């Protein structure tokens, strides 16, 4: 179980632009739950992910995994059990390395990065099969540099890389936002597939309400550092996109949009 307890996050503390985003914010996520988080810009969705991953410091509170605090762990140490896919398709791979080199990097996660050969030729067939299952024609492009591939292809590989080794949590930061609708659908379907197959606990920030309702076991709506809507289980099953949209428009009105 992932728990955020009494989180306080202040941007630009002590300056004229000081902004208190979270004030004793708490959230519990059950193991194996696929949580979709929606909300307007500045509502704290991405900050929430960054706090879990340790990418930004917090002023108070605690992040716990299975009851144990991870607040003192460095970001890279937390990623030992986490995978993350970013909005920008270029962020999840190394553009100047080939796809095979990228996949090998991900495959070696959790192992010692010593003087072993980076690329394990015996694994190539498995990489190819995994790429084949993506259905994007990537299986013949192992020797192509990542930078030469399209955004959708890169994002598919990013997803594959983030989930290649055993992990508990998958952090998805608007990972379909930069893709065309068809590719976004494909990536979303693949995401769902890997989350279910590997029984991952997933947190997905998205602006696509349809994805949130369709794929999330639980839907959270955030507004100015607060959870303003939280639907899970039976309650979530009876929630439609229209319900979410109505609530979303309400908070937008309150903001004066």
């Amino acid at each position, binding site marked *: 179980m992932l728990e955020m307890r009494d989180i306080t996050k202040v941007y630009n503390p002590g300056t004229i632009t000081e902004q208190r985003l979270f004030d004793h914010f708490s959230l519990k996520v059950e193991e194996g739950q696929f949580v979709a988080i929606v909300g307007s810009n500045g509502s704290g969705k991405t900050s929430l992910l960054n706090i879990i991953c340790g990418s930004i410091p917090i002023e108070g509170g605690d992040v716990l995994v299975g009851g144990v605090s991870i607040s003192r762990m460095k*970001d890279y140490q937390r990623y030992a059990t986490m995978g993350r896919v970013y909005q920008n398709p270029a962020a999840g791979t190394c553009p100047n390395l080939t796809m095979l080199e990228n996949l090998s*990097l991900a495959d070696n996660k959790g192992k010692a*990065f010593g003087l072993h050969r980076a690329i394990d030729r015996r694994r190539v067939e498995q990489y190819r099969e995994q790429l084949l299952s993506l259905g994007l024609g990537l299986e013949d492009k192992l020797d192509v540099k990542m930078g030469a591939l399209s955004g959708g292809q890169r994002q598919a590989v990013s997803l594959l890389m983030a989930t290649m080794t055993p992990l508990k949590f998958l952090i998805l930061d608007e990972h379909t936002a930069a893709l065309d609708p068809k590719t976004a659908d494909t990536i979303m379907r693949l995401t769902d597939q890997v989350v279910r197959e590997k029984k991952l606990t997933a947190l997905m920030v998205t602006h696509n309400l349809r994805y949130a309702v369709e794929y999330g076991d639980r839907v959270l709506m955030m507004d100015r550092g607060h959870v303003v809507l939280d639907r899970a289980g039976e309650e979530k099953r009876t929630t439609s996109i229209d319900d979410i949209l109505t609530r979303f428009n309400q908070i937008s009105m309150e903001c004066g949009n």
Partner: protein
Amino acid sequence: MADLLISTLIQGLIYALISFGVYITYSILDFPDLGVDGTFPLGAAITAILLTRGVNAWLTLPISLAAGALAGLFTGFIHVRLKIRNLLAGIITMTALFSINLYIANGSNLTVDRGTDTIFTAPSTMSLLGGLTLMERKLVVSLVLILTVKLVLDLYFNTRSGLLLRAVGDNADLVTTLAKDRGSVKMLGLVISNALVALAGCVVCHEQRSFSATMGTGQLVFGLAAVIIGISLMSFYTASPAARGLRQVRGLRFLGSPRGTTAVILGSVLYKLCIQLALSMGLPPNMMKLITAMLFLLVLVVSGRKGEEIIHA
């Protein structure tokens, strides 16, 4: 004339060791490491003092490597752990090393006298290459040395550690999500790079039998120029029909896609050749650094890489 060409070639080969170091920091890590200007004479100072004290010539190589590695570790530490900007971190190391080099060599100049054996005249070298003239021996020894380092680097870049090093310059955030500390990887890169630069200083000291405190000035600029020339020429070549044709032929594929290290050796030799050419045309030796700087400027402008990140091959 032939002698001049060969001695320029030897210079280019030996100085390619600096370019290897700069290739790792600048091209792979995107870190313009000015510490190079201090690490290079560090290798020479250590070598000069050890040779005059009668230490085995070949032993100066691993000692210089280790000293350079330490200097790189220092730059890496102040950049990564103390969060000093990369350019400043290098400048701090360079400045500190200036005094350290004076201390090691016990003065601003140290000459190794003719009676002392260098790696080019040591008994072990003579037993293998005794039939050659000194010039030929220098060529053979430096060629073997450079090719060995190149081969080791090529192998290293394809290890897990080497791949991670290439990844950290390409996308440091990805390295973090691989649960690895990007700072440590950067420090490792600086250690390897500075070790190689100090080795260059060591071999140059063997070659010219002297250390001078100012011999480091402009060496980063030289390394950068060599790397940029080499990489630019290589990307030009790999896009050509000839290279594309070669890549189709089984067994000749490697000729169609040369490695970054090969490009760097080529760049180094070409750059030394250009400078030698300028000197032969009558430019006084005092103008050497001026030429070095102007040639570098020319290279930056012509290659269209006006100081921005260079994409490693």
